[in-house]
Protein backbone atom coordinates (compact mmCIF):
# COMPACT_ATOMS: atom_id res chain seq x y z
CA UNK A 1 0.00 0.00 0.00
CA UNK A 2 1.60 3.31 -1.05
CA UNK A 3 1.61 6.55 0.97
CA UNK A 4 -0.83 8.12 -1.53
CA UNK A 5 -3.61 5.75 -0.49
CA UNK A 6 -3.41 6.73 3.11
CA UNK A 7 -3.16 10.42 2.29
CA UNK A 8 -6.20 10.10 0.03
CA UNK A 9 -8.17 8.33 2.74
CA UNK A 10 -7.27 10.95 5.36
CA UNK A 11 -8.15 13.72 2.92
CA UNK A 12 -11.61 12.24 2.35
CA UNK A 13 -12.27 11.79 6.05
CA UNK A 14 -11.01 15.35 6.66
CA UNK A 15 -13.45 16.56 3.98
CA UNK A 16 -16.34 14.70 5.56
CA UNK A 17 -15.45 16.12 8.97
CA UNK A 18 -15.38 19.62 7.50
CA UNK A 19 -18.76 19.12 5.84
CA UNK A 20 -20.14 17.96 9.13
CA UNK A 21 -18.98 21.15 10.81
CA UNK A 22 -20.26 23.36 7.99
CA UNK A 23 -23.60 21.66 7.54
CA UNK A 24 -24.98 20.30 10.80
CA UNK A 25 -26.80 22.75 13.09
CA UNK A 26 -26.47 20.62 16.18
CA UNK A 27 -23.42 21.75 18.19
CA UNK A 28 -22.61 18.31 19.50
CA UNK A 29 -22.53 16.81 16.03
CA UNK A 30 -20.26 19.67 15.04
CA UNK A 31 -17.95 18.70 17.89
CA UNK A 32 -17.95 15.12 16.70
CA UNK A 33 -17.06 16.20 13.17
CA UNK A 34 -14.17 18.18 14.69
CA UNK A 35 -12.99 14.99 16.34
CA UNK A 36 -13.32 13.28 12.97
CA UNK A 37 -11.03 15.91 11.39
CA UNK A 38 -8.44 15.27 14.07
CA UNK A 39 -8.69 11.53 13.34
CA UNK A 40 -7.96 12.23 9.68
CA UNK A 41 -4.86 14.14 10.83
CA UNK A 42 -3.83 11.14 12.91
CA UNK A 43 -4.06 8.85 9.90
CA UNK A 44 -1.84 11.22 8.04
CA UNK A 45 0.70 11.29 10.86
CA UNK A 46 0.74 7.52 11.15
CA UNK A 47 1.22 7.15 7.38
CA UNK A 48 4.12 9.60 7.28
CA UNK A 49 5.65 8.02 10.34
CA UNK A 50 5.61 4.64 8.64
CA UNK A 51 7.02 5.75 5.29
CA UNK A 52 9.65 7.98 7.02
CA UNK A 53 10.69 5.05 9.19
CA UNK A 54 10.52 7.34 12.19
CA UNK A 55 8.51 7.28 15.41
CA UNK A 56 7.94 11.06 15.82
CA UNK A 57 4.75 10.82 13.76
CA UNK A 58 3.20 8.38 16.20
CA UNK A 59 4.31 10.37 19.22
CA UNK A 60 2.62 13.35 17.69
CA UNK A 61 -0.61 11.33 17.33
CA UNK A 62 -0.68 10.85 21.08
CA UNK A 63 -0.27 14.54 21.64
CA UNK A 64 -3.09 15.22 19.21
CA UNK A 65 -5.25 12.83 21.15
CA UNK A 66 -4.41 14.61 24.39
CA UNK A 67 -5.43 17.90 22.80
CA UNK A 68 -8.63 16.32 21.45
CA UNK A 69 -9.51 15.08 24.89
CA UNK A 70 -8.89 18.47 26.46
CA UNK A 71 -10.96 20.14 23.75
CA UNK A 72 -13.78 17.71 24.24
CA UNK A 73 -13.87 18.40 27.95
CA UNK A 74 -13.85 22.17 27.62
CA UNK A 75 -16.17 22.15 24.61
CA UNK A 76 -18.81 20.09 26.30
CA UNK A 77 -18.53 22.19 29.48
CA UNK A 78 -19.21 25.27 27.35
CA UNK A 79 -22.19 23.54 25.74
CA UNK A 80 -23.62 22.73 29.12
CA UNK A 81 -23.36 26.39 30.26
CA UNK A 82 -24.95 27.46 26.95
CA UNK A 83 -27.75 24.95 27.46
CA UNK A 84 -28.38 26.24 30.96
CA UNK A 85 -28.82 29.78 29.63
CA UNK A 86 -30.56 29.32 26.27
CA UNK A 87 -32.04 25.85 26.44
CA UNK A 88 -30.72 25.17 22.95
CA UNK A 89 -27.67 23.71 21.32
CA UNK A 90 -28.63 24.89 17.86
CA UNK A 91 -25.70 26.74 16.29
CA UNK A 92 -27.93 29.30 14.53
CA UNK A 93 -29.43 30.61 17.76
CA UNK A 94 -26.01 31.61 19.00
CA UNK A 95 -26.09 34.91 17.12
CA UNK A 96 -26.54 37.74 19.63
CA UNK A 97 -23.55 39.53 18.11
CA UNK A 98 -24.02 40.74 14.54
CA UNK A 99 -22.56 43.58 12.41
Amino acid at each position, binding site marked *: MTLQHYLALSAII*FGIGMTGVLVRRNLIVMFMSLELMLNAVNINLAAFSKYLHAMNGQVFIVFVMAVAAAEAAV*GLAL*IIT*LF*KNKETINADEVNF*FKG
Partner: protein
Amino acid sequence: MGQSIVSILPEILMTIFGLMLIVIDVMSKDEKKSGVGYFGIAFILLTLLASVPVGGFKIVGFDQMLVWDSYAYAFFIVFAIAYILTTLGSVDYLKANGINKGEYYTILYFSIIGMMFMVSATDLSVLYLGLETMAIAMYIMAGFNKKDKRSNEAGIKYFIIGAFSSGILLYGLTYVYGYTGSTKYSVIAEMLRTNGVENLNIKLGLVMMLAGFAFKISAVPFHMWAPDVYSGAPTPVTGFMTVAPKAAAFGALIRFVMVALEPASVQWQLFFSILAVLTMTYGNLVAIAQNNVKRMLAYSAISHAGYMLIGLVAANDLGYKAIALYMIIYGFMNIGAFTILGQLKNKGIIDDERLESFAGLSKKHPLASLAMLIFMFSLAGIPPLAGFVGKFYIFSAAIKSGLVWLAIVGVVNSAIACYYYMRVTIYMYFKEAEYDASIEMKPASSIATFIAVVFVLLIGVFPSFFINIVKMMIV
Protein backbone atom coordinates in the same frame (compact mmCIF):
# COMPACT_ATOMS: atom_id res chain seq x y z
CA MET B 1 21.47 18.04 29.71
CA GLY B 2 22.23 20.79 32.25
CA GLN B 3 22.01 23.43 29.59
CA SER B 4 18.61 22.14 28.46
CA ILE B 5 17.18 22.52 31.96
CA VAL B 6 18.28 26.14 32.00
CA SER B 7 16.54 26.67 28.68
CA ILE B 8 13.14 25.87 30.21
CA LEU B 9 13.92 27.28 33.64
CA PRO B 10 11.42 30.12 33.28
CA GLU B 11 8.66 27.71 32.30
CA ILE B 12 9.46 25.43 35.20
CA LEU B 13 9.36 28.34 37.61
CA MET B 14 6.05 29.49 36.17
CA THR B 15 4.54 26.01 36.52
CA ILE B 16 5.64 25.72 40.12
CA PHE B 17 4.20 29.13 40.88
CA GLY B 18 1.03 28.15 38.97
CA LEU B 19 0.51 25.13 41.11
CA MET B 20 1.09 27.23 44.22
CA LEU B 21 -1.58 29.62 42.89
CA ILE B 22 -4.10 26.77 42.69
CA VAL B 23 -3.36 25.89 46.29
CA ILE B 24 -3.69 29.54 47.39
CA ASP B 25 -6.98 29.77 45.51
CA VAL B 26 -8.36 26.78 47.32
CA MET B 27 -7.29 28.13 50.68
CA SER B 28 -8.53 31.72 50.29
CA LYS B 29 -12.03 32.66 51.41
CA ASP B 30 -14.59 33.77 48.92
CA GLU B 31 -14.36 37.54 49.24
CA LYS B 32 -10.53 37.51 49.38
CA LYS B 33 -10.25 35.74 46.04
CA SER B 34 -8.53 38.79 44.50
CA GLY B 35 -5.53 37.85 46.68
CA VAL B 36 -4.87 35.08 44.15
CA GLY B 37 -4.49 37.74 41.50
CA TYR B 38 -2.03 39.76 43.57
CA PHE B 39 0.00 36.61 44.25
CA GLY B 40 -0.07 35.89 40.53
CA ILE B 41 1.41 39.34 39.87
CA ALA B 42 4.13 38.73 42.46
CA PHE B 43 5.00 35.35 40.98
CA ILE B 44 5.18 36.60 37.46
CA LEU B 45 7.41 39.53 38.47
CA LEU B 46 9.68 37.05 40.27
CA THR B 47 9.99 34.88 37.16
CA LEU B 48 10.55 37.99 35.08
CA LEU B 49 13.51 38.99 37.23
CA ALA B 50 14.87 35.45 37.60
CA SER B 51 15.06 34.74 33.89
CA VAL B 52 16.64 37.99 32.64
CA PRO B 53 18.74 36.90 29.62
CA VAL B 54 22.19 38.44 30.11
CA GLY B 55 23.46 40.16 26.98
CA GLY B 56 21.12 38.56 24.40
CA PHE B 57 22.46 35.00 24.80
CA LYS B 58 20.72 31.98 23.26
CA ILE B 59 20.24 28.78 25.29
CA VAL B 60 19.18 25.95 22.98
CA GLY B 61 17.54 23.19 24.96
CA PHE B 62 16.54 19.56 24.37
CA ASP B 63 18.38 19.09 21.11
CA GLN B 64 16.78 22.15 19.48
CA MET B 65 13.32 21.50 20.85
CA LEU B 66 13.08 25.03 22.19
CA VAL B 67 15.33 27.92 22.88
CA TRP B 68 15.33 30.60 25.56
CA ASP B 69 16.78 33.89 24.33
CA SER B 70 16.22 37.63 24.45
CA TYR B 71 13.66 37.16 21.68
CA ALA B 72 11.49 34.94 23.87
CA TYR B 73 12.21 37.15 26.85
CA ALA B 74 10.90 40.27 25.06
CA PHE B 75 7.61 38.51 24.39
CA PHE B 76 7.56 37.26 27.94
CA ILE B 77 7.65 40.91 29.03
CA VAL B 78 4.58 41.57 26.87
CA PHE B 79 2.73 38.63 28.50
CA ALA B 80 3.76 39.85 31.95
CA ILE B 81 2.52 43.38 31.21
CA ALA B 82 -0.77 41.99 29.89
CA TYR B 83 -1.22 39.73 32.90
CA ILE B 84 -0.43 42.38 35.51
CA LEU B 85 -2.63 45.07 33.97
CA THR B 86 -5.50 42.66 33.32
CA THR B 87 -5.44 41.26 36.82
CA LEU B 88 -5.42 44.75 38.32
CA GLY B 89 -8.14 45.80 35.92
CA SER B 90 -10.37 42.80 36.55
CA VAL B 91 -10.37 42.73 40.37
CA ASP B 92 -13.21 45.24 40.53
CA TYR B 93 -14.86 44.00 37.37
CA LEU B 94 -15.20 40.47 38.77
CA LYS B 95 -16.62 41.76 42.07
CA ALA B 96 -19.08 43.96 40.20
CA ASN B 97 -20.30 41.08 38.00
CA GLY B 98 -20.34 38.52 40.77
CA ILE B 99 -17.84 36.12 39.19
CA ASN B 100 -15.14 36.59 41.76
CA LYS B 101 -13.49 33.15 41.33
CA GLY B 102 -9.81 32.50 41.96
CA GLU B 103 -9.59 30.21 38.94
CA TYR B 104 -9.86 33.30 36.74
CA TYR B 105 -6.33 34.33 37.69
CA THR B 106 -4.98 30.77 37.70
CA ILE B 107 -6.13 29.94 34.21
CA LEU B 108 -4.86 33.28 33.01
CA TYR B 109 -1.54 32.43 34.63
CA PHE B 110 -1.31 29.01 33.02
CA SER B 111 -2.15 30.45 29.62
CA ILE B 112 1.06 32.46 29.87
CA ILE B 113 3.03 29.25 30.27
CA GLY B 114 1.52 28.01 27.02
CA MET B 115 2.47 31.29 25.35
CA MET B 116 6.04 31.08 26.58
CA PHE B 117 6.38 27.60 25.08
CA MET B 118 4.92 28.83 21.81
CA VAL B 119 7.38 31.69 21.55
CA SER B 120 10.49 29.72 22.48
CA ALA B 121 9.52 26.67 20.39
CA THR B 122 11.87 25.60 17.62
CA ASP B 123 9.99 22.36 17.10
CA LEU B 124 6.57 21.87 15.59
CA SER B 125 5.31 19.73 18.49
CA VAL B 126 6.23 22.26 21.18
CA LEU B 127 4.73 24.97 18.99
CA TYR B 128 1.48 23.06 18.52
CA LEU B 129 1.06 22.10 22.13
CA GLY B 130 1.95 25.55 23.42
CA LEU B 131 -0.57 26.98 20.98
CA GLU B 132 -3.26 24.57 22.14
CA THR B 133 -2.58 25.25 25.83
CA MET B 134 -3.04 28.95 25.27
CA ALA B 135 -6.11 28.31 23.11
CA ILE B 136 -7.85 26.09 25.65
CA ALA B 137 -7.16 28.62 28.41
CA MET B 138 -8.57 31.41 26.23
CA TYR B 139 -11.73 29.38 25.38
CA ILE B 140 -12.37 29.06 29.11
CA MET B 141 -11.64 32.71 29.82
CA ALA B 142 -13.91 33.83 26.98
CA GLY B 143 -16.81 31.85 28.41
CA PHE B 144 -15.91 32.60 32.04
CA ASN B 145 -18.99 34.63 32.98
CA LYS B 146 -21.45 31.69 32.96
CA LYS B 147 -24.53 33.74 33.83
CA ASP B 148 -24.05 36.25 30.98
CA LYS B 149 -25.25 34.74 27.69
CA ARG B 150 -22.93 37.07 25.75
CA SER B 151 -19.85 35.52 27.39
CA ASN B 152 -21.36 32.10 26.71
CA GLU B 153 -21.76 32.83 23.07
CA ALA B 154 -18.20 34.19 22.93
CA GLY B 155 -16.88 30.99 24.48
CA ILE B 156 -18.77 28.68 22.15
CA LYS B 157 -17.88 30.63 19.04
CA TYR B 158 -14.23 30.92 20.00
CA PHE B 159 -14.08 27.20 20.82
CA ILE B 160 -15.58 25.86 17.64
CA ILE B 161 -13.79 28.16 15.25
CA GLY B 162 -10.57 27.76 17.25
CA ALA B 163 -10.78 23.97 17.18
CA PHE B 164 -11.57 24.04 13.47
CA SER B 165 -8.59 26.28 12.73
CA SER B 166 -6.26 24.17 14.87
CA GLY B 167 -7.54 21.19 12.83
CA ILE B 168 -6.46 23.01 9.65
CA LEU B 169 -3.15 24.04 11.25
CA LEU B 170 -2.52 20.44 12.23
CA TYR B 171 -3.36 19.14 8.78
CA GLY B 172 -0.85 21.59 7.29
CA LEU B 173 1.64 20.61 9.97
CA THR B 174 1.43 16.95 8.94
CA TYR B 175 2.24 17.83 5.33
CA VAL B 176 5.19 20.04 6.41
CA TYR B 177 6.40 17.21 8.65
CA GLY B 178 5.76 14.60 6.00
CA TYR B 179 7.55 16.50 3.26
CA THR B 180 10.62 17.52 5.34
CA GLY B 181 10.90 14.44 7.42
CA SER B 182 11.29 16.15 10.78
CA THR B 183 9.54 18.48 13.11
CA LYS B 184 12.62 20.59 13.88
CA TYR B 185 12.71 24.07 12.37
CA SER B 186 16.39 23.85 11.44
CA VAL B 187 15.90 20.56 9.61
CA ILE B 188 12.82 21.92 7.84
CA ALA B 189 14.78 24.97 6.75
CA GLU B 190 17.63 22.73 5.54
CA MET B 191 15.24 20.56 3.54
CA LEU B 192 13.54 23.54 1.96
CA ARG B 193 16.88 25.06 1.02
CA THR B 194 18.09 21.87 -0.69
CA ASN B 195 14.91 20.64 -2.36
CA GLY B 196 13.40 23.98 -3.25
CA VAL B 197 9.91 25.11 -2.48
CA GLU B 198 7.99 24.40 -5.66
CA ASN B 199 6.61 21.06 -4.48
CA LEU B 200 2.79 21.11 -4.19
CA ASN B 201 3.03 19.22 -0.94
CA ILE B 202 4.97 21.87 0.85
CA LYS B 203 2.75 24.57 -0.59
CA LEU B 204 -0.33 22.89 0.84
CA GLY B 205 1.31 22.40 4.22
CA LEU B 206 2.58 25.95 4.24
CA VAL B 207 -0.77 27.51 3.35
CA MET B 208 -2.70 25.41 5.84
CA MET B 209 -0.28 26.18 8.68
CA LEU B 210 -0.14 29.87 7.93
CA ALA B 211 -3.96 29.86 7.73
CA GLY B 212 -4.02 28.39 11.23
CA PHE B 213 -1.69 31.14 12.42
CA ALA B 214 -3.70 33.77 10.56
CA PHE B 215 -6.70 32.66 12.60
CA LYS B 216 -4.77 33.18 15.83
CA ILE B 217 -3.71 36.77 14.91
CA SER B 218 -7.22 37.41 13.47
CA ALA B 219 -5.98 38.29 9.95
CA VAL B 220 -8.91 39.13 7.68
CA PRO B 221 -10.21 36.08 5.92
CA PHE B 222 -9.82 34.25 9.25
CA HIS B 223 -10.88 37.09 11.57
CA MET B 224 -14.66 36.58 11.65
CA TRP B 225 -14.57 35.19 15.16
CA ALA B 226 -12.72 38.14 16.70
CA PRO B 227 -15.41 40.87 16.88
CA ASP B 228 -18.05 38.60 18.39
CA VAL B 229 -15.67 36.92 20.84
CA TYR B 230 -14.02 40.16 21.89
CA SER B 231 -17.38 41.89 22.42
CA GLY B 232 -18.84 38.89 24.24
CA ALA B 233 -15.97 38.07 26.59
CA PRO B 234 -15.72 39.94 29.94
CA THR B 235 -14.00 43.28 29.27
CA PRO B 236 -10.66 42.68 31.11
CA VAL B 237 -10.44 39.29 29.39
CA THR B 238 -10.98 40.97 26.04
CA GLY B 239 -8.16 43.35 26.91
CA PHE B 240 -5.96 40.37 27.70
CA MET B 241 -7.11 38.42 24.63
CA THR B 242 -6.36 41.26 22.22
CA VAL B 243 -2.80 41.51 23.52
CA ALA B 244 -1.22 38.35 24.98
CA PRO B 245 -2.45 35.56 22.67
CA LYS B 246 -1.91 37.80 19.68
CA ALA B 247 1.65 38.57 20.82
CA ALA B 248 2.32 34.87 21.40
CA ALA B 249 0.92 34.01 17.95
CA PHE B 250 3.12 36.68 16.35
CA GLY B 251 6.16 35.53 18.36
CA ALA B 252 5.70 31.92 17.34
CA LEU B 253 4.86 32.88 13.76
CA ILE B 254 7.96 35.06 13.38
CA ARG B 255 10.25 32.41 14.74
CA PHE B 256 8.60 29.71 12.62
CA VAL B 257 8.63 31.82 9.49
CA MET B 258 12.07 33.37 9.89
CA VAL B 259 13.81 30.18 10.94
CA ALA B 260 11.89 27.30 9.45
CA LEU B 261 10.47 28.81 6.29
CA GLU B 262 13.33 31.15 5.60
CA PRO B 263 13.99 29.72 2.10
CA ALA B 264 10.31 30.07 1.19
CA SER B 265 10.32 33.73 2.14
CA VAL B 266 8.89 34.88 -1.22
CA GLN B 267 5.80 32.71 -0.68
CA TRP B 268 4.95 33.74 2.84
CA GLN B 269 5.77 37.40 2.17
CA LEU B 270 3.15 37.32 -0.58
CA PHE B 271 0.77 35.44 1.75
CA PHE B 272 1.08 37.94 4.56
CA SER B 273 1.10 41.07 2.38
CA ILE B 274 -2.34 40.07 1.05
CA LEU B 275 -3.50 39.45 4.57
CA ALA B 276 -1.94 42.66 5.92
CA VAL B 277 -3.73 44.91 3.44
CA LEU B 278 -7.07 43.14 3.90
CA THR B 279 -6.80 43.13 7.69
CA MET B 280 -5.89 46.77 8.09
CA THR B 281 -8.48 48.08 5.68
CA TYR B 282 -11.29 45.79 6.85
CA GLY B 283 -10.57 46.41 10.53
CA ASN B 284 -10.54 50.19 10.12
CA LEU B 285 -13.53 50.46 7.82
CA VAL B 286 -15.88 48.35 9.88
CA ALA B 287 -14.67 49.99 13.11
CA ILE B 288 -15.96 53.30 11.73
CA ALA B 289 -19.44 51.79 11.33
CA GLN B 290 -19.61 50.69 14.97
CA ASN B 291 -21.29 52.66 17.72
CA ASN B 292 -20.48 50.24 20.54
CA VAL B 293 -17.04 51.20 21.88
CA LYS B 294 -16.10 47.65 22.95
CA ARG B 295 -16.94 46.27 19.49
CA MET B 296 -15.12 49.24 17.92
CA LEU B 297 -11.99 48.43 19.94
CA ALA B 298 -12.40 44.79 18.83
CA TYR B 299 -12.21 45.85 15.20
CA SER B 300 -9.36 48.21 16.03
CA ALA B 301 -7.52 45.17 17.48
CA ILE B 302 -7.95 43.49 14.08
CA SER B 303 -6.57 46.56 12.28
CA HIS B 304 -3.58 46.69 14.65
CA ALA B 305 -2.89 43.05 13.75
CA GLY B 306 -2.76 44.32 10.17
CA TYR B 307 -0.13 46.97 11.05
CA MET B 308 1.96 44.31 12.78
CA LEU B 309 1.71 42.11 9.70
CA ILE B 310 3.48 44.89 7.80
CA GLY B 311 6.44 44.35 10.14
CA LEU B 312 6.29 40.66 9.38
CA VAL B 313 6.12 41.19 5.60
CA ALA B 314 9.19 43.44 5.87
CA ALA B 315 11.05 40.23 6.80
CA ASN B 316 14.13 42.02 8.14
CA ASP B 317 15.43 42.15 11.68
CA LEU B 318 14.10 45.67 12.08
CA GLY B 319 10.68 44.20 11.17
CA TYR B 320 10.29 41.72 13.97
CA LYS B 321 11.89 44.07 16.50
CA ALA B 322 9.26 46.58 15.47
CA ILE B 323 6.54 43.99 16.04
CA ALA B 324 7.81 43.19 19.50
CA LEU B 325 7.96 46.89 20.44
CA TYR B 326 4.53 47.44 18.89
CA MET B 327 3.16 44.60 21.00
CA ILE B 328 4.55 46.11 24.22
CA ILE B 329 3.09 49.51 23.39
CA TYR B 330 -0.17 48.01 22.16
CA GLY B 331 -0.42 46.06 25.39
CA PHE B 332 -0.31 49.20 27.50
CA MET B 333 -2.68 51.22 25.33
CA ASN B 334 -5.28 48.54 24.75
CA ILE B 335 -5.52 47.08 28.20
CA GLY B 336 -5.63 50.58 29.63
CA ALA B 337 -8.56 51.43 27.37
CA PHE B 338 -10.36 48.18 28.23
CA THR B 339 -9.83 48.74 31.96
CA ILE B 340 -11.57 52.09 31.75
CA LEU B 341 -14.28 50.56 29.57
CA GLY B 342 -14.72 47.84 32.18
CA GLN B 343 -15.40 50.40 34.90
CA LEU B 344 -18.06 52.21 32.87
CA LYS B 345 -21.45 51.78 34.53
CA ASN B 346 -24.49 53.13 32.74
CA LYS B 347 -27.63 53.49 34.78
CA GLY B 348 -29.36 54.53 31.63
CA ILE B 349 -31.48 52.12 29.63
CA ILE B 350 -29.00 51.24 26.90
CA ASP B 351 -26.17 48.71 27.33
CA ASP B 352 -23.28 50.44 28.86
CA GLU B 353 -20.60 50.36 26.18
CA ARG B 354 -22.41 52.43 23.55
CA LEU B 355 -20.77 55.68 22.41
CA GLU B 356 -23.67 57.69 23.79
CA SER B 357 -22.86 56.57 27.32
CA PHE B 358 -19.48 58.32 26.91
CA ALA B 359 -21.24 61.66 26.25
CA GLY B 360 -20.15 64.48 28.50
CA LEU B 361 -18.00 62.20 30.61
CA SER B 362 -15.15 64.70 30.80
CA LYS B 363 -17.22 66.90 33.10
CA LYS B 364 -17.97 64.18 35.65
CA HIS B 365 -14.70 62.23 35.50
CA PRO B 366 -11.96 64.53 34.12
CA LEU B 367 -9.08 62.19 35.01
CA ALA B 368 -10.67 59.02 33.62
CA SER B 369 -11.64 60.77 30.38
CA LEU B 370 -8.16 62.33 30.11
CA ALA B 371 -6.71 58.81 30.40
CA MET B 372 -9.18 57.56 27.77
CA LEU B 373 -8.21 60.48 25.52
CA ILE B 374 -4.53 59.56 25.86
CA PHE B 375 -5.28 55.91 25.06
CA MET B 376 -7.44 56.81 22.06
CA PHE B 377 -4.91 59.21 20.56
CA SER B 378 -2.09 56.77 21.26
CA LEU B 379 -4.02 53.99 19.48
CA ALA B 380 -4.52 56.42 16.60
CA GLY B 381 -0.74 56.94 16.48
CA ILE B 382 -0.57 60.67 17.27
CA PRO B 383 3.07 61.54 18.06
CA PRO B 384 3.73 62.55 21.58
CA LEU B 385 2.23 59.20 22.63
CA ALA B 386 3.62 55.67 22.39
CA GLY B 387 1.33 54.51 19.56
CA PHE B 388 3.24 56.74 17.17
CA VAL B 389 6.61 55.25 18.11
CA GLY B 390 5.25 51.77 17.40
CA LYS B 391 3.82 52.76 14.05
CA PHE B 392 6.95 54.73 13.18
CA TYR B 393 9.14 51.70 13.84
CA ILE B 394 6.87 49.45 11.79
CA PHE B 395 6.79 51.82 8.82
CA SER B 396 10.57 52.27 8.97
CA ALA B 397 10.93 48.48 8.74
CA ALA B 398 8.59 48.41 5.74
CA ILE B 399 10.42 51.20 3.94
CA LYS B 400 13.82 49.72 4.78
CA SER B 401 12.86 46.54 2.90
CA GLY B 402 11.47 48.61 0.03
CA LEU B 403 7.76 47.92 0.68
CA VAL B 404 6.83 51.56 0.15
CA TRP B 405 3.39 50.67 -1.23
CA LEU B 406 2.54 48.71 1.90
CA ALA B 407 3.73 51.58 4.07
CA ILE B 408 1.46 53.93 2.13
CA VAL B 409 -1.53 51.63 2.66
CA GLY B 410 -0.62 51.43 6.35
CA VAL B 411 -0.29 55.20 6.63
CA VAL B 412 -3.61 55.84 4.88
CA ASN B 413 -5.25 53.31 7.16
CA SER B 414 -3.90 54.95 10.29
CA ALA B 415 -5.32 58.23 8.99
CA ILE B 416 -8.75 56.60 8.56
CA ALA B 417 -8.36 55.02 11.99
CA CYS B 418 -8.01 58.46 13.62
CA TYR B 419 -11.65 59.16 12.78
CA TYR B 420 -13.22 56.49 14.94
CA TYR B 421 -10.75 56.94 17.78
CA MET B 422 -11.56 60.62 17.73
CA ARG B 423 -15.29 59.92 17.92
CA VAL B 424 -14.85 58.70 21.47
CA THR B 425 -13.13 61.94 22.45
CA ILE B 426 -15.85 63.89 20.63
CA TYR B 427 -18.52 62.25 22.77
CA MET B 428 -16.50 62.66 25.92
CA TYR B 429 -15.41 66.28 25.49
CA PHE B 430 -17.65 67.99 23.02
CA LYS B 431 -21.10 66.51 23.72
CA GLU B 432 -23.36 67.05 26.71
CA ALA B 433 -24.21 64.12 28.97
CA GLU B 434 -27.39 62.30 27.89
CA TYR B 435 -27.34 59.28 30.21
CA ASP B 436 -26.04 59.27 33.78
CA ALA B 437 -23.17 56.96 32.90
CA SER B 438 -20.36 57.02 35.41
CA ILE B 439 -16.93 55.49 35.94
CA GLU B 440 -16.17 54.73 39.57
CA MET B 441 -12.47 54.13 39.45
CA LYS B 442 -11.81 51.61 42.19
CA PRO B 443 -8.24 51.53 43.62
CA ALA B 444 -7.03 48.46 41.68
CA SER B 445 -8.26 49.51 38.25
CA SER B 446 -7.09 53.10 38.77
CA ILE B 447 -3.59 51.77 39.49
CA ALA B 448 -3.76 49.75 36.28
CA THR B 449 -4.90 52.80 34.29
CA PHE B 450 -2.26 54.96 35.95
CA ILE B 451 0.51 52.51 35.06
CA ALA B 452 -0.78 52.26 31.49
CA VAL B 453 -0.98 56.08 31.09
CA VAL B 454 2.50 56.58 32.57
CA PHE B 455 4.01 54.01 30.25
CA VAL B 456 2.17 55.30 27.18
CA LEU B 457 3.50 58.80 27.84
CA LEU B 458 6.95 57.48 28.82
CA ILE B 459 7.41 55.36 25.69
CA GLY B 460 6.06 58.24 23.60
CA VAL B 461 8.65 60.70 24.89
CA PHE B 462 11.60 58.50 25.95
CA PRO B 463 11.33 55.33 23.89
CA SER B 464 15.06 54.52 23.98
CA PHE B 465 14.79 52.32 27.10
CA PHE B 466 12.14 50.13 25.48
CA ILE B 467 13.89 50.11 22.12
CA ASN B 468 16.98 48.73 23.85
CA ILE B 469 14.95 45.82 25.25
CA VAL B 470 13.85 45.01 21.73
CA LYS B 471 17.21 45.77 20.10
CA MET B 472 19.00 42.70 21.47
CA MET B 473 16.44 40.30 19.95
CA ILE B 474 17.78 37.94 17.31
CA VAL B 475 15.53 35.23 15.97
